[in-house]
């Protein structure tokens, strides 16, 4: 329970359905001293704990705070920092879901005698004809909540409930209000929770304890265009904040950590029609045999609407995706998630 309206209402709905519900808030990154200073917002601050506790009180369910700071540091923050230093753009929510929420929290929950963990995601878990579990977007969701969940295993999905997936956000707010939950009007959380100000570069510098050197903006051909502020300030496809007087719109098309260069290109250069991915996982389909290709709808970032794509297994841990039409800003470190009939079939990390 993040203290937000979705997980609070999830608890309420499950209780109403007759489940024996235990509320849990994960303490994952904030130190207590910082907690007290952060008045509101975010998903894991002290106000989140206080709100969640109040909701649990209203629902009359047991409530606990569980500490996952160590695993969060190792699996999410360290990974986040490492990826940026390698010139890639990570998605920490994916890592958090896979290793913290659905590994450590699930393990802890099963330990204390629970059968399922439930979340406030606007998504549904479908039991497919082939016997597999897969996450499907709730038809009415304004925002996609399936992308960051693509890495869950069958075992994890078998122990997961997403009770708000059957409703729209306004419906959930109405239910929360009717139930007298004190968080019905709370704002949605935004951004990456451990970088509430959105300044990733400063966060990484604080974490690593060093300032990253500036380097050159270059063209693909190697022509030096100017100085950049350090590669962690940039992501593929970025246009703003480059400060390059080029007389036309230019974009980051590549980050080269080895030479500390940021490659700049024009509009057309940001589009690509193919990519390779590894760290493969499968959800709705059991596997994709080597050499075989199938057609899916694929998303290459959280807010991507999806593009038709032929996915071919080209290695033990590699797929090669060819898009029906070029896609903008293929970004190493982000996930490609491919869908069939609205459910997640599988995914991997873009190389």
């Amino acid at each position: 329970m993040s203290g937000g309206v979705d997980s609070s209402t999830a608890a309420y709905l499950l209780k109403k359905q007759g489940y024996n519900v235990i509320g849990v808030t994960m303490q994952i990154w904030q130190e207590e001293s910082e907690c007290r200073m952060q008045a509101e917002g975010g998903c894991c601050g002290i106000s989140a704990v206080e709100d969640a506790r109040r909701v649990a009180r209203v629902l009359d369910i047991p409530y606990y705070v569980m500490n996952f700071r160590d695993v969060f540091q190792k699996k999410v923050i360290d990974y986040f920092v490492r990826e940026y230093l390698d010139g890639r753009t990570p998605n920490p929510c994916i890592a958090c879901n896979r290793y913290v929420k659905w590994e450590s929290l699930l393990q802890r929950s099963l330990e204390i005698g629970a059968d399922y963990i439930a979340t406030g995601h606007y998504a549904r878990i479908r039991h497919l004809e082939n016997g597999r579990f897969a996450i499907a977007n709730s038809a009415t969701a304004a925002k996609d909540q399936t992308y960051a969940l693509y890495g869950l295993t069958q075992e994890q999905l078998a122990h997961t409930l997403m009770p708000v997936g059957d409703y729209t956000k306004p419906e959930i707010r109405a239910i929360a209000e009717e139930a007298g939950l004190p968080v019905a009007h709370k704002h949605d959380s935004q951004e990456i929770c451990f970088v509430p100000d959105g300044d990733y570069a400063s966060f990484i510098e604080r974490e690593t304890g060093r300032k990253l050197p500036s380097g050159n903006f270059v063209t693909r051909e190697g022509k030096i265009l100017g100085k950049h502020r350090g590669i962690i300030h940039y992501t593929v496809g970025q246009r703003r904040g480059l400060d390059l007087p080029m007389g036309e719109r230019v974009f980051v098309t590549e980050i080269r950590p080895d030479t500390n260069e940021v490659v700049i290109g024009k509009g057309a250069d940001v589009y690509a029609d193919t990519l390779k991915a590894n760290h493969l996982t499968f959800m709705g389909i059991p596997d994709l045999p080597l050499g075989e290709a199938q057609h899916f709808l694929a998303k290459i970032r959280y807010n991507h609407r999806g593009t038709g794509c032929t996915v071919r297994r080209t290695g033990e841990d590699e797929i090669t995706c060819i898009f029906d039409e070029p896609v903008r800003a293929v970004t190493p470190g982000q996930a490609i998630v491919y869908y069939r009939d609205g459910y997640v079939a599988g995914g991997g990390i873009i190389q």
Partner: protein
Amino acid sequence: MIYLDNAATTRTAPEVVSEMLPYFSELYGNPSSIYGIAQESKAAIDKARESIAHVIGSRTDEIYFTSCGSESDNWALKAAFEAYGDKGKHIITTKIEHPAIRNTCEYLERERGAEITWLDVDSEGRVDPAAVERAIRPDTILISVMTANNEIGTIEPVREIGEIARAHHVLFHTDAVQAFGQIPLNVDELHVDMLSASGHKFNGPKGVGFLYIRRDVKIRSFLHGGAQEHNRRAGTENVPGIVGIGAAARRAETYLGDKIKKEIGLRNYLIHQIRANVPNVKLNGPDPEAPVQTHQSQNVQHQNAFQGQFVNQEQSVYKEGSLHQDEDIQKHCALTSDLGNRLPNNVNFSFEFVEGESLLIMLDMRQICASSGSACSSGSLSPSHVLKAIGLSDSLAHGALRMTLSEENTKEELDTVVLAIRDIVRRLRGMSPKYEAYLSGNEQAETEAVYSETAAE
């Protein structure tokens, strides 16, 4: 419900509550006023002050009431730092202090230019008085060492440290929040200049504490305002609270000998039963069951003799329903060293391959109240700095469970608790990949030390 978290807080004793009640709606006068009911309030405060002074052997005008133990600690440290600024900025403390001391020292270090020496402790949590002496510099203005640790119950060699501080003309403060009302304390015998305590830790109410300040200490006021508490702590007095802490102090003084005796019996029983029923455990803090070792001081032999007496008397101890004075103990307990070096009510175990958090939750589901370390505002758990300071690995520190008894606990309750722990630990280990690895002989290093310790018994 079985309540084993008396270090977090205690039940306010009914007789304490009855003494407090008139000071809410009947005798509600402001003690600073001149009329009759105001004088009643004033007199009640004086009585409370006398009661506390009597317990620690101080003068009454050396007792200052505060809102809590943390305020007392903050006051002692910050005000001493200001008052003795001419002499220097160096403070000596330990790595196992309560956050009220630790964070205040860190504040003084960060914001006010203090230099802090954080002394190590041994594997039982004991500070070496010789290390205190070595740390003293010409510009040392304050030594602050807790009387007894809140997590693992270690009683620190406060008297030795006090003597050293006195010899070097350095001010000595002790955070006695966990010790006051639990073990005998005398400020002259211990040579302390300042001592903090909190009402709700010894069956008094929450929201009231005190700071003892020796008469010749130049400490300044902390809360500025009216002339209350000899001009040193402004704010209209919390009369019912002060009445409560005074009543609780009297009660603690009266029953101390019996309380200690009974708690030591229960504590040793609990320690023994856990070791007998749960494999792969480590007792954190001083071990009352440990055989006397030749290199240890005479004090320790005393301690074992003293505690052995209680272990032998176990049966009779449990049968005793009422608390009464025990002259012998009253006399001997004047010396803290006779108690051994562990608080009578503290038990702290690490369970290998178990997440303390899960254990606590499952105990709560069985209506057993315990703790993993110090309670914190968010109710979450950080790896304990105390357990780290005594050399525990992160995983053992995470597997720690603190149970702090009261004289109201019964042997039957402890039997229930031991069975619950045994079952829960068995279940949690059954689900732990680390335990599986350990069983198949793949787990090394970290666990070996602990296992050999338990196996040696």
